[in-house]
Every structure is written in structure tokens, then in C-alpha cells.
């Protein structure tokens, strides 16, 4: 629906525009993103996202660090879900070194990544509620997330930057007490998901604010290279866990939620449905947990992958995270490029914000669930 400020045009009828900085410090830009908006009244005529305020140059830093030191830097990209970052880096390095990963380490990697997906989507649920104006879901979502962080703390010692998935396997093991606590969390979490549906997903004001807003057709989503829930919200069913399964994902049966017409609500609801699927995967993984050792045998203390290039990508919580690793046989990676899903998803804002109101800008920006650590790397 074209907004009125853009319909009424003609000689002598132009509205003088005002340039507003949705600046690097703003309560709902999820970090340090600057949106240069040109407003005609309340309606946006031009949007220019300016990033780089959290650019730490990790790709350059990794060229002077050996492979084990690089894993630490991978945690700091998408800090809301750090496990898939570790996993993508380790998969590409292991692909170069052609190392066979023991089955227990594969299963542990799947368990940790799925738990991290739930924790990351809970952050999204909370912050998106605040963007639309409802403060309370944030508190409930973070209460559940605390239980997941306790599980991580018991297993790998850290709450946010785990450094748990290492080259060749996994850092620490879990025991029956951990499995019991995890099952108890899953039982406790399922009714909470239905609670969120009544609290936020089907709230009439929330539906009014998100249903017809930020519509992205299928061609635009594919053209702009979106990935993850943003792409699936527009109806394209592309999930790396299904298209190129890694770490044994083909053994678990789960379905991929797909939206209908790519509105903010579809992207939001894809993420809520994904949490249910992750619970299914976790239950299957916990029952079929094989025993055995955690690390691949015969891995050097300071690994030197043979010269060559490898590209490995995983389905991170925010999209298709790919690591292109070039090695010249040295101790440090020669060149590493991160295909950051948030960086590529953010570019579409220039196009779809035209003609929206200021309140819609926040709804659309929030529905993309970007993390500035991954956008700027």
C-alpha cells in the first residue's frame, strides 16, 4: 500500500524532506548501525544504512594467528549464537585436512548448535517484542535462555563465547546429569512456546504492526541473497541442514518452516516454528547419543592444513554462514573470508524501507534479526 505522502505529487506539491540519523546509538538498532533516513513528514523517501562501527578486522587478524587461536575470534562474529561460527570454521579446516570426526563429537556438535539456535531465537523474540513496544516478552524469553546458558556453563564453562567446537572434535564431554537437565529444560520449554504464541504471535496489535509490513517477494529475496529465516519467510524453502547436510543432520527428521508472503510476521513466525523443530532435533539427538572419544586421532598440536582452498557453510541461526579458507601450508590461514548472512541480509533495507513510516523502519529492521558483530566482522 503506497503511503499518502508519496501519492500526492505534482508541481509545487513536493514536501521538503528532513534528514534524520537513526544513529549508531539508538535503542533499537541492535548494536551500532546508522540508518540515514530522508523523511517526508513521517514517511521515508530514502534510506542509507551505514555500517562499519563494529568492524574489528578479524579477517586480517586471523592471517597472523594459528588455527587454534582463530577459533576464539570466530566466537565474536555472531555473538548471539557462537557455536555455528566455531562449527563453520572447524568444518572448512577439517575439510582441508580431510580429518574424520568421531560420531560422538558429531552428535555433540549438533546438540550444541541446536541449543544455541533456540537461545539466539529467544534473544530475537525478546528484542523484537521491545521494538514493537511490548516489554514483557523480553523478560520471559531471557528467563528461558538463562536455563540454556546454565547448561552451556556446566558443559563448556562459558555463557556466550564458548570456544567449545575445536579442530578435530569437541572440547568437553557431557554426563547423564547434563542430559537429565537438558531433557527437563525441553519439557519445561514446550508449553512456554505456546505461551509466546498467545502473548505476542497472535496479539492483534502485534499482528496489525507486522503483517502487511516489509513485504519481500520471492525474487527479491533470492536476488538480494537473503538466507535463513529471512529467505524462508518469503516462501523459498532453502535450509543448509537439508540441502548439504553436515555433522550427521541427515539422520534427524525435522521439517523446515516456510512463510507465505515474506512479511515481518512471516519472518518472525518462521523463527518461532524453528525453535519447535530444534526441540525435536534435540530430543532425537539426546536419545541416540553415541559413546566414544571426543577428538579425532593424529591431529598435530599446531595443525598445518595442506595447501589448498575449502568452502564450508552451516545453517547458523541468522542464515547461511560460509567460511572460505585458503591455506598455503603455513601455521596461520593464508586468507579467510566469512560469508556473513547478516551483512548480506542488511543490504535489502535500502530498497524496502522506501515509503514506510518511522515505526515500520524499526519493525522491518527488527524482523531481520541482525547482529552487528557479524555484519562488520
Amino acid at each position: 500500500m503506497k503511503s499518502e505522502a508519496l501519492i500526492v505529487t505534482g508541481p509545487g506539491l513536493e514536501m521538503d524532506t528532513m534528514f534524520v540519523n537513526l544513529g549508531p546509538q539508538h535503542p533499537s538498532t541492535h548494536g551500532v548501525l546508522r540508518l540515514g533516513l530522508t523523511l517526508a513528514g513521517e514517511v521515508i523517501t530514502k534510506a542509507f544504512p551505514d555500517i562499519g562501527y563494529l568492524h574489528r578486522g578479524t579477517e586480517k587478524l586471523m592471517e597472523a594467528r594459528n588455527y587454534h587461536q582463530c577459533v576464539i575470534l570466530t566466537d565474536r562474529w555472531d555473538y548471539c549464537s557462537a557455536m555455528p561460527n566455531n562449527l563453520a570454521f572447524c568444518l572448512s579446516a577439517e575439510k582441508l585436512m580431510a580429518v574424520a570426526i568421531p560420531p560422538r563429537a558429531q552428535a555433540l556438535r549438533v546438540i550444541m548448535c541446536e541449543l544455541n539456535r533456540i537461545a539466539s531465537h529467544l534473544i530475537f523474540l525478546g528484542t523484537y517484542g521491545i521494538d514493537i513496544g511490548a516489554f514483557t516478552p523480553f523478560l520471559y524469553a531471557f528467563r528461558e535462555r538463562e536455563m540454556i546458558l546454565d547448561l552451556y556453563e556446566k558443559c563448556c564453562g562459558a555463557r556466550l563465547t564458548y570456544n567449545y567446537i575445536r579442530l578435530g572434535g569437541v572440547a568437553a564431554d557431557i554426563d547423564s546429569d547434563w542430559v537429565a537437565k537438558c531433557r527437563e529444560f525441553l519439557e519445561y520449554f514446550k508449553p512456554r512456546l505456546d505461551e509466546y504464541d498467545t502473548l505476542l504471535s497472535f496479539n492483534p496489535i502485534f499482528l496489525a504492526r507486522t503483517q502487511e509490513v516489509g513485504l519481500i517477494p520471492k525474487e527479491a529475496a533470492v536476488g538480494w541473497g537473503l538466507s535463513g529465516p529471512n529467505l524462508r519467510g518469503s516462501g523459498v524453502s532453502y535450509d543448509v541442514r537439508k540441502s548439504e547436510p553436515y555433522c550427521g543432520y541427515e539422520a534427524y527428521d525435522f521439517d523446515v518452516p516456510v512463510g507465505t508472503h515474506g512479511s515481518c510476521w512471516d519472518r518472525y513466525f518462521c523463527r518461532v516454528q524453528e525453535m519447535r523443530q530444534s526441540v525435536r532435533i534435540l530430543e532425537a539427538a539426546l536419545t541416540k547419543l553415541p559413546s566414544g572419544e571426543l577428538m579425532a586421532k593424529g591431529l598435530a598440536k599446531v595443525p598445518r592444513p595442506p595447501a589448498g582452498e575449502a568452502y564450508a557453510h552451516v545453517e547458523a541461526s541468522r542464515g547461511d554462514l560460509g567460511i572460505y579458507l585458503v591455506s598455503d601450508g603455513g601455521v596461520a590461514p593464508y586468507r579467510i573470508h566469512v560469508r556473513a548472512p547478516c551483512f548480506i541480509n542488511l543490504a535489502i533495507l535500502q530498497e524496502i524501507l522506501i515509503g514506510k513510516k518511522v515505526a515500520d523502519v524499526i519493525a522491518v529492521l527488527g524482523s531481520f534479526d541482525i547482529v552487528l558483530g557479524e555484519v562488520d566482522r
Partner: protein
Amino acid sequence: MNPLAGADAVARLLAAVPKAEIASSPVKDYPTIRLAAPADLLLAARLLKGDLGFMYLEMVTAVDWLGPVNLGGFVCGGNSNPLSRKPAAPPVSPVPGPGVSYRPMLDLLWSFGNLGENRKIFLRLELPRDRAEVPSLTSLFAAADWQEREAFDLFGIRFTGHPNLIKILTPDFLQGHPLRKDYVHAKDRYDEE
């Protein structure tokens, strides 16, 4: 489904694009095609998007094959232990491994995905380091817009025809392109002790 199954797509691409051949050092487990000249890029991209159904531009990136990284590009000289005063042994190997030849070239890489048949193809192109010029793909793929700006910002590759080729990540007052191997960091007011 094994991504290498798209042999016919690779064959039709090789036939259509002059002097294109299977890359000598491919990206592991994925079909990689080396283009000969920058002009072939638009032709190959149009063919990929039009007939072969590769609508999804996944990644645009580059590698600088000049040689081992110059530790001047790091503020503390690549010192892995910030507390120790003496410079530690740089973890960078001066001698290239087998099958790798350092040369003053920028090696660009594009990755196209066919979501329907679940296939990937990588295009590769070598450019001289000093005047790296290549046509921009923003006319065909909107996803190329920011990734080309990032390649320009970090490597200094000029994409002709790009609507808005300006810095995207590095601060405005940073001179030079950081990801080039010979980048030396000029200390600014934030770096003095």
C-alpha cells in the same frame, strides 16, 4: 545430493565462455571455473542466471597472492603475546607449501547457487594487483552491491558500473586497503601509547 552432480551446467558454461577452463586449484568438492578476462564475467553471469537457473549469488571475495602477510599491517606487529616486549616468532610461514606459487595477482572468486537443484558453481578470475578492474554484477544480482563494496574497501578492486562504490567497513580516515598482504598500518591518534 552431491553438489558435483551439475556436470552438464559446467560443460554448457565452458562451451559458451571463450578460453574458460576448469580451475587448476579448485575450491575443494565444488566445480570451479577459471575465466580468462574480466570481459567474460558478465557473459558467464548472464548465462548462469538466465539459462542454468543459478539465481543466487552467494559470495564475492578475493585473495591476494603477493606472499606471506606483512606484519606491519598489525598494530603490535602480529605479536601473539601482547605482554612480552620482544617480538615473538611470527606464525607466518615464509616458504609456500607444495602446489602454491606466490605471484603479484589478486584472485577474485564468485559463488553462484542454484537453490532449486541444490547446486553450486565457483567462478575464478586473476587480476594484476595495481589496476584491478572488473565489471560489476549489480545489474544482474542485487546481492553483489555490498559484497563488491566490501571487496573494494578491503582490497581496492574497482568494479566498473557499480552504483555506489564507496567505503563500507573501514573508518573514513584509514588509508590503504587492509586485506592486501603489503598493507602497513599508519599509526593515527588512537594508536599512540
